[in-house]
């Protein structure tokens, strides 16, 4: 079997996920090889469409790093995002894509270690799952 390195698209909320990513980078923590970070002002900015488009455009897994509930700077952005992830997962079931390919992970600004650990675990999980068969060539 060829060495498949899963592509992960990580949407990072600028209030939590992105600072956590910066912290992980400063501490030189391990990151998956094929990682694309997309910073957003609030996880509430992430449209359901973007979650699917990321998969369609080549991602094997999509992760959203969002603030903990109650901690959203814009009150309910992360709550809206949660509903959208639920909707996207329903669509993924209908297409036949595995649920593990989309996940929300809650972080705070100082979660550099959690950020790195979660991504590495996700990469391992996706490696076992195999490539996303729905992505356009």
């Amino acid at each position: 079997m060829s060495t498949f390195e899963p592509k992960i698209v990580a949407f990072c909320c600028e209030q939590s996920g992105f600072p956590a990513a910066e912290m992980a980078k400063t501490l030189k923590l391990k990151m998956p090889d094929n990682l694309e970070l997309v910073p957003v002002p609030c996880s509430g900015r992430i449209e359901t469409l973007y979650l699917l488009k990321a998969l369609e455009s080549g991602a094997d897994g999509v992760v959203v790093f969002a603030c903990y509930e109650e901690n959203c700077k814009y009150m309910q952005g992360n709550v809206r995002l949660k509903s959208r992830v639920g909707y996207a997962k329903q669509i993924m079931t209908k297409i036949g894509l595995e649920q593990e390919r989309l996940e929300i992970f809650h972080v705070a600004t100082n979660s550099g270690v959690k950020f790195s650990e979660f991504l590495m675990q996700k990469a391992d999980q996706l490696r076992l799952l195999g490539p996303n068969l729905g992505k356009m060539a």
Partner: protein
Amino acid sequence: MIKAEQKPFEEILEYLAPYNKILLSGCGACVTVCHAGGEKEGALLASALRMARQKIGKPLEILESTPARQCEPEFAQELSDTIGRVQAVLSVSCGVGVQTLARHFPETQIFPGVNTSFMGETVAHGVWEERCQACGDCILEKTAGVCPIARCAKQLLNGPCGGSSNGKCEIKRETDCAWQLIFDRSKSLGQLHRLTEIIPAKQWGVQSRDSGPRRIVREDLKV
């Protein structure tokens, strides 16, 4: 306005099985407002369809276009160039839009992507309820602004029936009994006495669609 719901995904896949290049046509009006069609939901459906077809090794090319509405001839014409380049059209507009396109493009398959459900009201964000069934002869003046045709399971004109219980309908327990609502509202309007007036049976064959599809003409507007 018109409320609709996206058709089951498997059904849409079945319609599109013989094709490999289609247009997904949205509508910027009613289906946008109820989040069933329109640009956002259309794009979502297109993305899902592409991935589903990619997965089974039969890629499907989807062009996306969302005219402001699909029920006027001009809006349908806006799509003619694009339609010329595809094999079929999946329209996520209401049944009217699908048929408008069908009439203008007799050589192209136009598939419905949503089930047009009812004319309804937004009761809360994301929750829509049936309010009107276009009977063609509105009796809301007699029923304190609550329609028994659309909201009574039995379409009673002089209800309630014996099954009305605690303000709920015996057919669907979660549904409010329309005649309870009519009673309550008549009371708050000080018009309970109106309920003693018998509302005659509707002339379904004359006023409504029982003698075929209806037509409205305004002679003064005709060009």
